[in-house]
């Protein structure tokens, strides 16, 4: 049984179709990189997996059940930082607050809970600044703390919505490497949304490309090619390879800035 399966999934906001007839199966232990322009529905699809966004047609099954039923096995790093940005709590307190945060009562931690908080901070390599107030941390350090929050309740599926945003290239590589190592240690399945394929090239088992209404899922060799990306976007896309890096460019004369930079 696949860990996650999509059957003919359609998602709409009003009359606008964001996802249309999407079917796919994702196996345990995979690392899926998800790419596509702004507003294409990447975050929406993740929210649908969590049961936070209603599905118009088709079905999503996680561990063989409908969305929302098995969320305690999902670690989620949302795209927005929400209120985290303004808080004066330390990284450690923020991770602790998330640990079994859905329980009734006061946020009191047993020694076993504290141990798990330390373990999550270790896994995401955020221990060095665990006692610094969150608002004083750098963007990259904040992402590590949010990763620890996603890891704290020992998830089986990790959904990371643009964890690389606002990181420099070196830290992008380091964070991907760390997540890859965590996956090796724990056997997690990972859905990883990003805009640049390069930092993820060595880590992904498969690539998912989304374009208006269409989704393509396959190995990096299959998907990141002139033919499949051109077919997906319905325009002439060139994949250039140089010095081990991939550059995806729109080959048509009237280059659309936004499409080009986010493909």
């Amino acid at each position, binding site marked *: 049984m696949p860990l996650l399966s999509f059957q003919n999934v359609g998602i709409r906001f009003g009359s606008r179709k964001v996802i249309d007839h999407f079917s796919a199966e994702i196996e345990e232990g995979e690392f899926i990189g998800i790419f596509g322009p702004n507003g294409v529905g990447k975050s929406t699809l993740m929210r649908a997996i*969590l*049961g*936070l966004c209603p599905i118009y047609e088709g079905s999503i099954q996680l561990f063989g059940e409908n969305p*929302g039923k098995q*969320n*305690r096995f*999902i670690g*989620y790093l*949302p795209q*927005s930082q*929400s*209120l*985290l940005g*303004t*808080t*004066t*709590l*330390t990284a*450690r*307190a*923020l991770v*602790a*607050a*998330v640990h*079994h*945060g*859905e*329980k*009734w*009562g*006061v*946020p009191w931690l047993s020694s076993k809970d504290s141990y798990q908080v330390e373990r999550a901070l270790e896994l995401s390599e955020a221990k060095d600044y665990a*006692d610094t*107030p969150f608002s004083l941390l750098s963007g990259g350090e904040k992402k590590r703390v949010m990763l620890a*929050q*996603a890891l704290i309740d020992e998830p089986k599926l990790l959904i990371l919505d643009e964890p690389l945003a606002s990181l420099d290239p070196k830290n992008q590589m380091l964070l991907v490497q760390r997540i890859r190592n965590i996956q090796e240690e724990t056997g997690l399945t990972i859905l990883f949304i990003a805009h640049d394929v390069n930092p993820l090239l060595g880590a992904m088992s498969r690539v998912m490309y989304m374009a208006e209404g269409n989704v393509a899922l396959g190995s990096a060799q299959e998907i990141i090619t002139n033919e499949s990306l051109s077919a997906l976007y319905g325009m002439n896309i060139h994949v250039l390879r140089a010095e081990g890096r991939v550059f995806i460019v729109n080959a048509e004369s009237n280059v659309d800035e936004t499409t080009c930079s986010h493909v």
Partner: protein
Amino acid sequence: MMHYLSYDFVQNALIAGSIAAALGAVVGYFVIIRNIGFAAHALAHIGFTGATGAILFGLSPLQGMLVMSSLAGATMGISGNRFHRSELAIGMVLSISLGLGTLFLSLYQGFAGEATAILFGNIFGVSHAQVIETIFLSALSLFLLALFSRRLLFTSIQPDLAESRGLSLTFLSTAFMIILAISVALVSQVVGTLLVFTLLIGPAGIATRLSHSFWRTILLSLCIGIVSVWSGIFLACLTNQPPSFWITSILFVLYIFTELKIKLFESV
């Protein structure tokens, strides 16, 4: 100084003051991490209208305030984040309710003295019955808050993640806004609706500047709140100046020292 303790009104003031300060200190902490200071401020002033309009319905000012600010708090909570973080929406509701408050005041000439007490607080005027009312409502609020404080903390810092774990953001924010409304009404009795910020934001705000872990901050906030109310009441006995003045002054001085301490020790 101890002989002040034998007066009934001083005893009542100390009891009601400590309880309101404790409630304000704990609830205020959540106001700060949820970043809804303006909504708290608005609830206090909306409560003022409730207090002045209470007579129309044969209620006490405290009861009027409780009804009015709980209603407003619940509305803010139910309408969700977009409303109670929207300065325009809160500002508009605040204006109309203060406008109504003015109307109520003009309808009841001779009520001005009591209005001053509501605005600036009159802790020495707290009766035995009010003390009982304060104890009961505070215990209820703190109990409810304790019941879902873990969930509230979670939704306050990571709403998306909390929602994915099955927590209802609307339910929690509504429940919290009602507790906030009750706290605002009780704190108003001590320092008045104009100075609710003093006990609701002051102690918790200073505590979050000094400490960055949940329990230590709450504890520090409690200490600051209670110590400043007690000192304020004793200074008022000694000097004959209003306790509200002393409580706000003490907190202000504490605040200045806190900022100085942070400047001196963290910029080197």
